[in-house]
């Protein structure tokens, strides 16, 4: 199958990848079963979405009996980094500081969360200083 380079996932693809990341690997039916009841997605639509994800090189598949088992090729945190980089580039003029500033200035952020962010930054600085 011809692979196409596509950096980001669409909304519905992300929904599928999230379930697949949680499962580790799974068939179309496994992923559909994990989706909320009201999603009401047809099996063929699910199969199409996973096939597109394979064309985009986000998953690989192997045949097992009559069905295909899909495995993510990209880890969730790797995708999170990619997605944040994209967000930083498109919405924050490619300055990650603006992105963090916006996040830190959010009133809904609790003191505990802010403390955790500080700890993460400190740890990163300490590691870089070595």
């Amino acid at each position, binding site marked *: 199958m011809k692979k*196409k380079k*596509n950096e980001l996932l*669409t*909304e*519905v*693809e992300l*929904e599928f990848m999230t379930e697949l990341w949680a499962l580790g690997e799974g068939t179309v039916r496994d992923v559909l079963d994990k989706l909320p009841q009201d*999603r*009401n*997605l*047809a099996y063929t*639509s699910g199969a*199409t*979405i996973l*096939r*597109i994800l394979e*064309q*985009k090189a986000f998953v690989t598949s192997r045949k097992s009996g009559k069905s295909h088992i899909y495995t993510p090729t990209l880890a969730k945190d790797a995708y999170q980094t990619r997605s944040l980089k994209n967000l930083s580039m498109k919405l924050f003029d490619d300055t990650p500081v603006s992105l963090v500033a916006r996040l830190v200035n959010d009133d809904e952020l609790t003191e505990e969360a802010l403390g955790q962010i500080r700890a993460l930054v400190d740890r990163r600085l300490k590691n870089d200083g070595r």
Partner: protein
Amino acid sequence: MMVGEALLDAYINANILFCVAFALWFLIRGAMSRIGLKHAYTTQLWLLNAGFLAIISAPLLVAGFGFLQGNGVAKGVNVNLSDMVVSYYLNGGFEMKASDFEGLILMRDKFIISVMSAEGAFAKAVIAMFIVGVGLGMLRLGYSIYCLCRLVADSYDVRRIGRIRIRVSDRTLVPFSTRGFRNYYVVIPSHMLGQHHEMKVSIAHEFQHIRQCDLEWEVMLEALKPLFFLNPAYHAWKRQVEHLRELSCDSQVISYGRIDVRDYCGTLLAVCQQTLRRDRAFYIAVPKVTLVTADRTSMKPGKSLLERRILSVLSGRRIRHKRLVFMTAAVPLMAALVITSVAIQRPGDWSHDRLMLSTVVNLDRLDEINRLSAFGRIRN
């Protein structure tokens, strides 16, 4: 006649024909509305397409008419407009100075000769404007086709049914169909994969466009657009085709009874909402046929196309005997177009009336000279 002159002549004729055909189409549409055939969209679309075909094949029709006359069929019949006007003038139909009238009659010939010889500032300006206009139009078309090819190439194959390929794209918000040399492509936006009803409606709609051969007509209209960039009738014609093919497609899809009217209207509204988002590459890409587009350019008060489409779908009117209605309207339209095609040709040779007109003009000139003295003073 030189090849260049013949081509320019055919081009002028085609422009005139588009104007005449559009005026005739307006009359026919008005007549159809009066007799309760306002909603016969498929028939109206067929009429427009038949008219278009008649216009682009006008040189063949004229050659065919000439061939028939050359073989003794309707030999005495002269429907040349220029000859008829000259005859009417000579019979005292209207008052005008002979030299002015001759100038008017020969205006087209003079224009063609001056453009072909590129003499004078006016001819040069016309040539420059035409080359720039056509060149820009061709560049735009080339870029549009490139955008469309990329859009299709970047999409993902979902299913193949014969020569039709259903693809899903992240880069479009509106379903559309287009065609290559061999295959048809129906491209569905990826967000629709989670919307079963919208996907079903979109595929049914685009399949109907393929059945109606709308893509082929769109390719032809887009291909000729750079050539007729100055002709408002051509643009109006294209717009009419675009509106009618959507209205016709809607009524056909609903008439099959496989899709719920509510789902259909809901999809049209949802997709229209999506088109309001910015999607420049999508707007540029042609030739394609979309499910729906938001008409941002319309400045006219009144119903939008989307509103007309929804009202038409909800009314659920069916027109019986489409082919009969089409034939009834197409025969006079085609006859009028064939006669106009022949009538607007440049007269082939000097007819008796033209010789008479030339004689009258020469006599007028002699009279004018006689009225002048040898020293340039008026005698009486």
